[in-house]
């Protein structure tokens, strides 16, 4: 195991300040938006035009369809659409 003196330990503790609380909460909410994500991805798979609109302008396409522009949903959708 690596040994650290007190000065080094202090520096290393200082090196990891908390991430902004809102970011952490948003990432933790991923499982709860799964249903909405599945619905959007299923629509995109069934409707090529919708899928193209999502790829061209994700936020705009979602807003036009009445979906909320939740950053968690946006980040997760980018991943899901890329992996399809």
């Amino acid at each position, binding site marked *: *195991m*690596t*040994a*650290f*003196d*007190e000065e080094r*330990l*202090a520096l*290393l*503790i*200082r*090196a*990891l*300040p*908390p*991430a*902004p609380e809102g*970011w*952490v909460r*948003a*990432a*933790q909410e*991923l*499982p*709860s938006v799964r249903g909405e994500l599945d619905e959007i991805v299923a629509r995109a798979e069934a409707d090529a035009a919708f899928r193209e609109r999502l790829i061209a302008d994700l936020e705009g396409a979602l807003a036009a369809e009445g979906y909320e522009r939740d*950053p*968690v949903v*946006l*980040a*997760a959708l*980018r*991943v*899901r659409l890329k*992996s399809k």
Partner: protein
Amino acid sequence: MASTLSDSELVARCRAGDQQAWNELVERFSRYVYAISVQAFRLPESDAEDVFQEVFARAYQHLDKLRDDSAVRPWLAQLTRRLCIDRLRATARERPATEEELVDAGSEETLALLDDALTVHEALAAAPEHCREILDRFFARDESYKTIGEALDLPSGTIASRISRCLARLREHFEGRSDPPPPSGGR
């Protein structure tokens, strides 16, 4: 951050759909992911937030593809680095990066330091609460003695000595002379 679960146990629970485990996984690695993007790659906060959300979105989506559950930490680090580099490339197309920015981006030295920092934070997470709280508040949250004293109901004069004792205890842990095993050590 006071979990008794190893990284592999945590990943297995997340994969089984345990919301509490997912909350904990995000909590356990949030500082690390954040620090890689803002300290090692010096991304502005808005870009760092996008990277942060995408790292966890990808992790959530692809957790079942992780071949070794105990490797979640290097996997997340690699994912974060890749997304930071993508972000820097995209930014460079819009606004050419300065020589200094490109040279410094993602320096191995900073990444190694953050890796050690996570190891220390994991040990801290398993330390007694009175040590965990005071060391985190003073060093990581940069709180003053006054703020800490009020929050923990401690006289200012006690704070310095407690910080010193807790650091010594943590040092002993890394010298193998006292308990708390870090989560990634697999309990």
